[in-house]
């Protein structure tokens, strides 16, 4: 990456004096649907997107199912927050301008916003070798590198566009991994999802560049409900990255996304996330509620690998999962979750072993600082058909300070005698000996802490694409500020 995406804070535009460097707001006129959720809103979103009848029907089914849930969001997670008023949220907010046909037509203010974020939207960033789809509030703003990708037959576009240009693919796979009735937030998303990314890699194609989506919530009191669908045909490979930020606002913002991955026979999907939604200020005011459903299905010999670095959000509720459906399929989950101040994270994974000789690896690192609480919650399930299934799980937690919490809640469900399951977890604080060693070599307490914590996460960062790994390390440093000393 030629430009660093960690940029300085624009202090004047921040509502809160938080040490959140992405906290600026952009003054863009938004096209807002009225607050609240009802069938008309669902119809309005669908109409705005000029969607076909089947999709509207699917949304309405989801909405009707959601009504049956009577606002009863799941309560088992180890997070606390006041009840969310689902009728006090904007379900549709779009930058006010027609869909741009090329980068030149994109509203300069939006471009400026992404410039501030350091997102290389312009093709001048060719050297960066990353194709970007940027989603501001609910609308995908611009996609770069279209031509390069089209040559290989790779489709990378906003999902709303894919609905129009490739309806057969969307109709076949949308909801095939996460059905609309899956869980409270996924149902809500299915009813009101606005946009997101769509990726299709044709048979045997190795996607030449890394694909990236950048998400940002800008509008106050709005929810962001994006939906990502990635399909890797037989023998293909794709590496996909996502990044997220939001302005610093006093009120909480709701983010309920759904990501579906379909890895057909012999294919591989590598999905990396840098989640840096606004975490709220020092006193826990504001911040994004991040309730996300991510799941992939791996067919024969396919591999799905989730890597996530979670430093943002007031609340993170997220369990990227893999259904190991085909024989010999592989699932991986590498995660760093950091909480500081009043942040709460309940995150982990689910590995569902169905096929024979399926393997899964889970490595989760939790770092708790300030008054934050981080919970690893993961399920490893071996169905009777999964002969020879293997899982290895390792969860390590690091505590920085005496007001925080680190929790590990693994669920291990085994219905096959040939399965080998291993789970290990440990919790400790930053070792005094290591700190002393660093300090007597002349490092400050802060630098020593950072170096040790960085080392603790090294194994995960190595799974990230290079530029992302650099950024993740920076992000960690910034997020830990004020936690030590």
């Amino acid at each position, binding site marked *: 990456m030629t430009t660093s995406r960690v940029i300085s804070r624009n202090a004047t535009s921040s509502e809160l004096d938080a040490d959140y460097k992405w906290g600026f707001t952009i003054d863009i006129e938004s096209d807002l649907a009225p607050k609240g959720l009802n069938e008309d809103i669902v119809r309005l979103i669908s109409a705005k997107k000029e969607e076909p009848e089947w999709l509207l029907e699917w949304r309405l089914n989801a909405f009707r199912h959601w009504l049956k849930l009577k606002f009863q969001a799941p309560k088992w997670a180890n997070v606390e927050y006041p009840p969310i008023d689902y009728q006090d949220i904007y379900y549709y907010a779009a930058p006010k301008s027609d869909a741009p046909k090329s980068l030149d037509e994109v509203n300069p203010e939006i471009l400026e916003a992404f410039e501030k974020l350091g997102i290389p939207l312009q093709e001048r960033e060719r050297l960066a070798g990353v194709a970007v789809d940027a989603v501001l509030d609910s609308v995908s703003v611009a996609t770069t590198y279209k031509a390069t990708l089209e040559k290989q037959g790779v489709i990378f576009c906003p999902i709303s566009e894919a609905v129009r240009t490739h309806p057969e693919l969307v109709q076949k796979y949308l909801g095939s991994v996460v059905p609309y009735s899956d869980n409270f937030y996924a149902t809500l998303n299915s009813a009101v999802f606005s946009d997101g990314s769509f990726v299709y890699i044709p048979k045997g194609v190795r996607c030449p560049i890394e694909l990236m989506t950048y998400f940002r919530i800008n509008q106050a009191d709005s929810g962001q409900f994006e939906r990502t669908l990635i399909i890797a045909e037989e023998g293909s490979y794709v590496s996909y990255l996502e990044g997220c930020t939001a302005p610093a606002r006093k009120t909480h913002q709701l983010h309920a996304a759904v990501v579906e991955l379909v890895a057909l026979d012999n294919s591989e999907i590598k999905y990396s996330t840098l989640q840096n939604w606004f975490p709220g200020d020092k006193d826990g005011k504001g911040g994004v509620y991040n309730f996300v459903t991510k799941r992939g299905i791996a067919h024969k010999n396919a591999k799905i690998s989730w890597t996530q670095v979670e430093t943002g959000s007031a609340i993170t509720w997220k369990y990227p999962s893999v259904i190991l459906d085909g024989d010999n399929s592989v699932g991986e989950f590498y995660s760093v979750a950091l909480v500081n101040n009043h942040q709460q994270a309940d995150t982990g994974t689910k590995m569902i072993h169905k096929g024979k*000789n399926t393997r899964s690896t889970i490595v989760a690192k939790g770092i708790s600082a300030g008054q934050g609480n981080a919970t690893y919650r993961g399920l490893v399930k071996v169905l009777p058909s999964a002969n020879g299934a293997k899982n290895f799980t390792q969860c390590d937690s690091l505590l920085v*300070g*005496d007001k925080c*919490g680190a*929790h590990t809640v*693994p669920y291990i469900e085994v219905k096959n*005698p040939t399965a080998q399951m291993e789970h290990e977890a440990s*919790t400790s*604080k930053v070792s005094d000996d290591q700190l002393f060693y660093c300090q007597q070599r002349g490092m400050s307490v802060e630098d020593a802490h950072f170096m040790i914590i960085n080392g603790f996460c090294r194994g995960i960062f190595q799974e990230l694409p290079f530029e992302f790994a650099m950024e993740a390390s920076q992000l960690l440093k910034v997020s830990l500020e004020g936690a030590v000393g």
Partner: protein
Amino acid sequence: MTLAPAKYAHYFADFQALSQGPGAGAPPWLKTIRDNAWSRFSETGFPTARRGNERWKYSNVGPIAKIDFGLASGAAPVNASKALAPEYQLDGPAVYRLVFVDGRLHSGLSSPANGSNGVRADSLATTVADGSFDLEARIGNYAPLDDDDGFVALNTAFLHDGASVHVADGHSEKVVIHLSYVTTETAIDSAPKVTHPRTLVVAGRNSDVTVVESYTGPQDEVYFTNAVTEISVGEGAKVDHYRLLLDGAKAFHVGTSRVNQEKDSSFSSASFALGTALARNDFEVLLDASGAYCSLNGLYLTTDNQHIDNLISIDHAQPNCTSRLNYKGILDGKSRAVFGGEVMVRRDAQKSDAQQTDKNLILSHSAEVNSKPSLMIYADDVKCSHGATAGHIDADTLFYLRSRGLDLDAASRMLIHAFAGEIISTVKPEPLREYLDTLFSAAIPDKSLPFGITR
């Protein structure tokens, strides 16, 4: 008095019969405890609604709630009771044995301690009647009614008899208490029986107590044992606790044990489970003062359609405490085992050291293990770890034994036996250890099927 919910009318009838009949002479404080417990139970009922209830995520108590169990009356012949109690003798200078038949102390089979030498081990009913020991402050103190499970409340509502053990402060001579709870055969034409065994153990300062609880009953009958055990381990005291769940193959067993540890005390426990259609072992240890140590071991072997649920929690409420937890399961047939355990380290409980392990051996394609060993940690200067494994015996290990001339069956048996041996060897009294070893060896299924066969 709260009205009975229609669902639990038969329990209410028995409750009224007890409080107006044999329990009528109880002191007012005990009546209040029973009444409060009944109203608590009528509020909660049994935890049959499991959606969102993490405590009962993998176990269905529907079968218990569905049957109208009648309160056992305790009028069985001596010989029948004797045959059902476990056969081993504990020896030593101070061994006291209390045998409860259908919920009542059987004086003919028991050898209580009257308190003259600092040890009082007698029936709860007698201890209440002579008022020799302040039970009011103890009963229900360690096992309060505040959970939503209903079982403690139901047990407490029927609190009439049980074991009361009190070892005086400074009584450092080793005391062995042997408690047997026996359910006898149900008479023809009567409802399946329920007993509510209650155990209270108060180990005074610097005392040394061994407690063996065993639960037995007829092999082929449906009955329900709803046990509650409260143990208080005084400052510097040492308690060795053994829990033998040996109920019949069609029986239901819900056991709730609550342990409270004071400063520098030590509590070692081993729970064994064999048999029982549906069993729950809800065990909670509160490390309530600095320097306390606890070690909880468990071994369960299930076959056929059996279901066993171990919910083992350790609460590090104070700094400088150490806990060790090691549970092992062997599963065959269509049986299911659940392990739920929580190690909690509270804020400011610095220098806590906790280890938690659950290992399972699955011998059949239809058996199922659900393990959820969780750590909840709110203090930073701690050393906590946990591990869980499920699977079969390593093919290399098996190969080693076979290369030494053992056939597959013998090698398998030897390895399963060794797997169980780790827990059995923690039992200190030799006769008990041998008894358990024989019992589990005999119960190990004759099969070597899934070893090392992965394809």
